[in-house]
């Protein structure tokens, strides 16, 4: 347990500043977006931008190299996934193992909307029905009164 604690401390250092020369603002933006979307394979839930681990430094350099080679964002992500697995992708890929993940929110919204409509309609009907019931009860009471007299 102490070892785990040590590990926590070691990787808790804050993000290091890295000075790079970018050819253009768009290159810088793409780089920034990529290193924020890619996960450091070794750290405790940090993206490449936030981590100081040696592997994160190497992977940032790799991303930049691939960017300069002219690869597209998707190709760069695929390149790293081919070597490190889906684990390094913070935006899960659209594949059988993630269908549930991507479909569920929309499905939940539809279900919730349906339930809302159903509850609304049901209680309206009940309100109307009870209103009719109550009126009938009142009529009976009044009839009984009249009958008594």
């Amino acid at each position, binding site marked *: 347990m102490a070892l785990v604690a040590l590990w926590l401390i070691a990787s808790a250092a804050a993000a290091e500043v890295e000075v790079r020369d970018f050819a253009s603002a768009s290159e810088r933006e793409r780089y920034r977006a990529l290193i924020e979307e890619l996960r450091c*394979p070794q750290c405790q839930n940090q993206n490449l931008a936030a981590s100081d681990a*040696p592997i994160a430094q190497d992977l940032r350099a*790799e991303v930049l190299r691939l960017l300069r080679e002219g690869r597209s964002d998707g190709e760069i992500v695929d390149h790293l*996934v081919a070597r490190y697995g889906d684990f390094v992708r913070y935006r899960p890929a659209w594949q059988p193992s993630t269908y549930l993940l991507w479909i569920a929110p929309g499905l939940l919204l539809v279900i919730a909307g349906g339930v809302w409509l159903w509850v609304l309609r049901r209680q309206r009907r009940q309100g109307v029905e009870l209103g009719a019931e109550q009126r009938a009860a009142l009529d009976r009471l009044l009839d009984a009164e009249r009958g008594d007299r």
Partner: protein
Amino acid sequence: MDRLKLFVPLIIFLVLAVVLYFGLGRDPRELPSALVDRPLPSFSLPSLREGAAVDESALRGKVRLLNVWGTWCVACRDEHPFLIELADRGIPIVGLNYKDDPRAARAWLQRLGDPYELVVVDADGRYGLELGVYGAPETYVVDADGVIRYRHVGVVDPAVWREHIEPVYRNWTARP
């Protein structure tokens, strides 16, 4: 019927609890290699001892362990004696000297013993990136056709060898 609907939250919770229970047995930090059952990526790197260039064919012909190590890595030192023991038992081990200084590496091996039949120098770590290495020590099992069959991240000690690596090694050695 209405009463039955009220059991739905309980059922959902029980499913969740079961998932969490099985989750306790899993290690979220363990990352299996993305290259399992794929051929070892090609490389052309110098050998530590002779300096001559070696390529991936050096790992064909029989089942070998590929051990990623560096003199800067404290845990590598911890597992080193056991690697020597494995080598003495006849297990072929190829070393990948990862992001290290070759001279320091040679001195280190001279001082602590050399279990490797061959050491490949990956000084800048580029090949490590191809392999999906994210921290030393890592040990791969590469079969006779140069296909990666297993990766272990962390120190290889007798328990790890017996429970995780040896079965894979024996399995692939037994195949023709």
